[in-house]
């Protein structure tokens, strides 16, 4: 009995120690149009960072220490720090995309079997308007273009083995958090990433 009580209290304390998502229908906290605009701009900064981080993590020239650090920073951009967030990947050599947990995707990206990897933004992203999707929760979708190229090495030179441009969509959420002492605040984070289209790039 004591063990159960202690365990329950521990769970309550752990849940309260960090912010939690508000889920109380009669506790609407206002978010103005100007606030949403500010968060939308912030989301754009986060998307730029995400794309920059991927190019570091996929690079064969960076040491493991750097890649691990950047992978941790990447997860901070996402809801639940990337837990249960998924990333879809595609290839011109496959008919259907594959979906991975984000952490798994980052590990795979860091260990790709190419001699050289280049990942970069291939166009300007676009973020949709934000729409209310629940109590104290808003959602938008961003479209990004990502170029991926993998190279093999022959002596001193690198030969391109694969290159594509993929259009992806990223979910973006603005939601309310609450700290253990009842302080409420809005936060913006990225969510699941899906493939919209993949084309070869030369």
């Amino acid at each position, binding site marked *: 009995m004591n063990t159960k009580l202690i365990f329950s209290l521990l769970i309550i304390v752990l849940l309260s120690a960090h912010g939690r998502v508000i889920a109380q229908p009669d506790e609407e906290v206002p978010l103005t149009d100007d606030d949403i605009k*500010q*968060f939308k701009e912030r989301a754009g900064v986060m998307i730029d960072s995400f794309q920059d981080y991927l190019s570091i993590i996929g690079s064969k020239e960076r*040491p493991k220490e750097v890649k691990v*650090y950047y992978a941790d920073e990447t997860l901070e951009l996402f809801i639940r720090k990337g837990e249960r967030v998924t990333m879809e990947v595609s290839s011109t050599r496959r008919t259907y995309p594959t979906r991975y947990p984000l952490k798994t995707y980052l590990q795979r990206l860091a260990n790709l079997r190419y001699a050289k990897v280049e990942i970069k933004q291939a166009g300007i992203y676009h973020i949709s308007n934000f729409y209310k999707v629940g109590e104290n929760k808003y959602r938008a979708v961003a479209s990004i273009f990502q170029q991926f190229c993998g190279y093999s090495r022959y002596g001193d030179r690198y030969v391109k083995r694969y290159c594509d441009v993929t259009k992806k969509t990223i979910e973006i959420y603005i939601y309310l958090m609450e700290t253990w002492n009842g302080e409420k605040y809005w936060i913006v984070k990225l969510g699941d990433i899906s493939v919209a289209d993949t084309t070869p790039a030369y």
Partner: protein
Amino acid sequence: MKRIRFILLFWSVSFMTKAQTFHGIIFANTFDAKIGHSVNINYNKMLTEFAAIASANNMKIEQHYFRDFDYNKDKLMETLNNIQFSSQDIAFFYHTGHGGRATNDKTKWPQLALGDYDSDFVSLNRVLEILKQKSTRPQLIIVMSQSCNSESSSLTAKESISGGNTVLENSTSDNYQKLFKNLKGTIIVSSSSPGQYSYSSGVGSTFTNAWLKELQHIVSGNGEVNWNTLFERTKQRNAEILKHTDPNSYPQWEVNVTSTSGGDDDDDITIKTNSEVFVNDLLGLANTRNTEIERIRLVRPLLQKHFDNEFVKVQILGKNGKTIVERQSSERFLKRLSTTRRLVGLAVLEKKTNSNGKITFLKIHEIYKR
């Protein structure tokens, strides 16, 4: 460790050079019982915009920001008399507070109320004249007042008018640079014309908000990029906001600028240094000229140097100077800065320190390039 100390020292000291500098000067009457809240909003918005202007023009920024107890005539005169420029600098003076005019004022510009007595009022035009008469005059001087320009019988006339108008010439470079770096001369503007009042609300003052909005539109490529167009559009927006309150209140301005032959900088926006050591260190942390490992290894030393502990609250504000778009611990904040690849400027909106000078709370706005 030695290398890290060297990098820190390099970034703290090395850019005290003759880099082209944007001098932002703000005097804000944030203590006033009636308008203080709105003035504070103006203060934050303009501080943020100054950081953006400096970054977009690839200029180092020198901050001369005064509010609360520092909002007084002595501080204003001390600042204007002591400030030094190089010939390629830009000076932007912004006042937000009460203002007025004498019934026999010869100039159309308001007097800035820096205290309760007539002797505490300083003409906006006098601010411009002081800056123009510096031994080394900045390339471009802008003075702007967000204040009333209404008559008061208890005020006496101060300075007389001077200056004339020159039509701006357009150039084809980046829009912010078209308005600042590529120009020389003077601009003076007040939020209301002789005999008129200016207005504010819970979201700041109408003229300042209108000007910032139109500035953003124009630098985003929506319209002709010149100061007269900017002020005309500001006037229209201001009138739209005030049409039911006071349709007879409108800003006035004089633009007396010509274009320069252009700078010798690279086209890319890069990090330029700041006069404040703390901000300089943060910009050094974000600078991609250092390797990733060097930047990562700067986090802990900077945390110990500037912050009271790793859990100090840091709030990142949006461009409106109001919405908190991110909240982080000091450690998290520095780690993120150590990985960012596009940060070009920072504006500190609020900083609390303890008796050891370590930061215990920070509010900051970040400026990125895309």
